[in-house]
């Protein structure tokens, strides 16, 4: 089980309360697809991903980004039980979606960068450290059921 200090929990939940999930989610997914173009391999049904502008404006990217980050919110709400929270999603990503878990780490780091861009100074080193831990734990939980 992951141990969170009271400070870490506060840093995470306080920031989360200010996050615009739709906006940050779509931005994080768009940046993943732009910065690491090979990740587009999972989204051949999404239509036009031919340029950064196309990706950012793509409605399927926006919708999916929001979906992904909304799900991330479940981790924030269940910090003491992240593995169980993501058990079914882990099976899905392995058995149906066939996603290499490395992609969870890539997206997690991109999310941290998006938070840094949105919150600036408020995203202190301590705040970043708590969030790095969270994205690492979420990535681990999502890969836990892989076989």
């Amino acid at each position: 089980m992951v141990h969170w200090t009271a400070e870490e929990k506060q840093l995470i939940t306080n920031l989360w309360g200010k996050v615009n999930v739709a906006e940050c989610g779509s931005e994080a997914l768009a940046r993943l697809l732009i910065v690491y173009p090979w990740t587009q391999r999972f989204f051949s049904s999404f239509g036009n991903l031919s340029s950064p502008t196309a990706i950012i404006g793509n409605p399927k990217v926006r919708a999916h980004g929001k979906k992904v980050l909304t799900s991330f919110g479940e981790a924030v709400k269940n910090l003491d039980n992240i593995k169980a929270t993501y058990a079914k999603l882990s099976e899905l990503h392995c058995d149906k979606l066939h996603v290499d878990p490395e992609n969870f780490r890539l997206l997690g780091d991109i999310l941290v960068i998006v938070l840094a861009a949105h919150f600036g100074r408020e995203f202190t080193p301590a705040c970043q450290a708590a969030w790095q831990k969270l994205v690492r734990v979420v990535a681990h939980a999502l890969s836990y059921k892989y076989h």
Partner: protein
Amino acid sequence: FSSRLFSSFPQTKTYFPHFDLSQGSAQLHGHGSKVLGAIGEAVKNIDNITGALATLSELHAYILRVDPVNFKLLSHCILCSVAAHFPNDFTPEVHAAWDKFLSQISSVLTEKYR
């Protein structure tokens, strides 16, 4: 970016037992400037990063021997700092270019390791 590195990835502190790593330390500030200076050299010689950082490459290979995984961690923290300081300039395209650029610098600095 160094306080972000040491807070988020404490294992990186093992390379600096001889440093005062408290925030605001003169040593940290000086070293951070050195790192940024080298990045600046790479920017100026972007079509020949290998040449521009040749000495640094040898330093890292034979003397410092920093495990390659740490270059990714540092690059990530540099990107976070840049994003936090210049949110309007740090568009997805700029982000992609910088990620690629820092990745290239990391490759150059580790290419003589073996």
